[in-house]
């Protein structure tokens, strides 16, 4: 029953779930399922983007002031890190498609490492913001001219990047699972659905950051 892990090949029909007629149907169902899930995520983050839009429209100065306090080098580096991790993820899928188990494992590892780098930098940022009393709540301190509304900015900053970071952590869990099943030889050029849909999830998390970065870090930087 166990696939031959050393050879890295598995008889395909084992992976055909009973409710599907053929592998093509299963593959299309898996892909569509992940895309529908990503649609829900668009709306999930969308509620936060709506809140952001409303308050940035009301308090442009406070939002700009808050944005200036963020570490632009950290945000930019993290953007580069995530884009690179998307590349390595795409290359991992490519390796799976071409049956290259070693490259698949390598690129999954690199993607995970880059994810960890992202979280590390994010953690450093959070620590900095904590030390500078920019965490909303009783201890919040800010230039009195904008203090009241800057707290709104930071609430959004922490919630949006925090939710994003949570999704990254889940993504790392998904990567680990994919690494494990690839190691066990479950993935072949005939059957690589988990890698493909895992990749879709990872790219989506990257796209959320692609929008978070300018909206949070780059407000009216010219005035700084």
């Amino acid at each position: 029953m166990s696939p031959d892990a050393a050879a890295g090949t598995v008889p395909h029909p084992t992976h055909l779930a009973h409710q599907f007629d053929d592998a093509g149907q299963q593959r299309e169902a898996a892909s569509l399922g992940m895309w529908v899930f990503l649609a829900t995520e668009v709306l999930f983050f969308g509620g936060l983007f709506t809140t952001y839009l409303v308050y940035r429209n009301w308090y442009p100065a406070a939002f700009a002031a808050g944005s200036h306090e963020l570490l632009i080098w950290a945000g930019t580096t993290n953007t580069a890190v995530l884009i690179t991790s998307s590349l390595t993820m795409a290359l991992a899928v490519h390796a799976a498609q071409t049956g290259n188990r070693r490259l698949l494992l390598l690129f999954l590892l690199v993607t995970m490492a880059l994810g960890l780098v992202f979280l590390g930098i994010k953690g450093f940022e959070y620590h900095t913001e904590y030390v500078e009393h920019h965490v909303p709540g009783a201890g919040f301190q800010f230039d009195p001219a904008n203090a009241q509304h800057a707290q709104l900015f930071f609430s959004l900053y922490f919630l949006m990047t925090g939710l994003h970071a949570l999704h990254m952590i889940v993504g790392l869990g998904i990567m680990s699972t994919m690494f494990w099943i690839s190691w066990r030889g479950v993935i072949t050029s005939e059957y690589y659905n988990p890698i493909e849909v895992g990749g879709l999830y990872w790219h989506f998390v990257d796209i959320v950051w692609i929008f978070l970065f300018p909206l949070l870090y780059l407000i009216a930087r010219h005035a700084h």
Partner: protein
Amino acid sequence: MSEHIIPRRTYYTIYGLLMLCTYLTVQIAYFDLGPLNTIAALGIAVFKATLVVLFFMHVKYGTRLTWLVVLGSVLWLGILLALTMGDYLTRTWRAL
């Protein structure tokens, strides 16, 4: 998800474009373009996201249904944003 395998060279090209756009968006932020700053920043973000969706996520070679799901989700977010802002932007309007 089609069987079409995108060549690695395409991935590297897209990667280069994404990094270039990131560099550009940071640089542009330091110039005062008034309202164009936000438009530029969001425009570049949309462009980057489109590249990721089309190539890294294989949608360029995907089914029409996938396109529909992608566009539908963006459209729905648009509905949420537009109709909500429709309230906020008209609250101070005087009677017609």
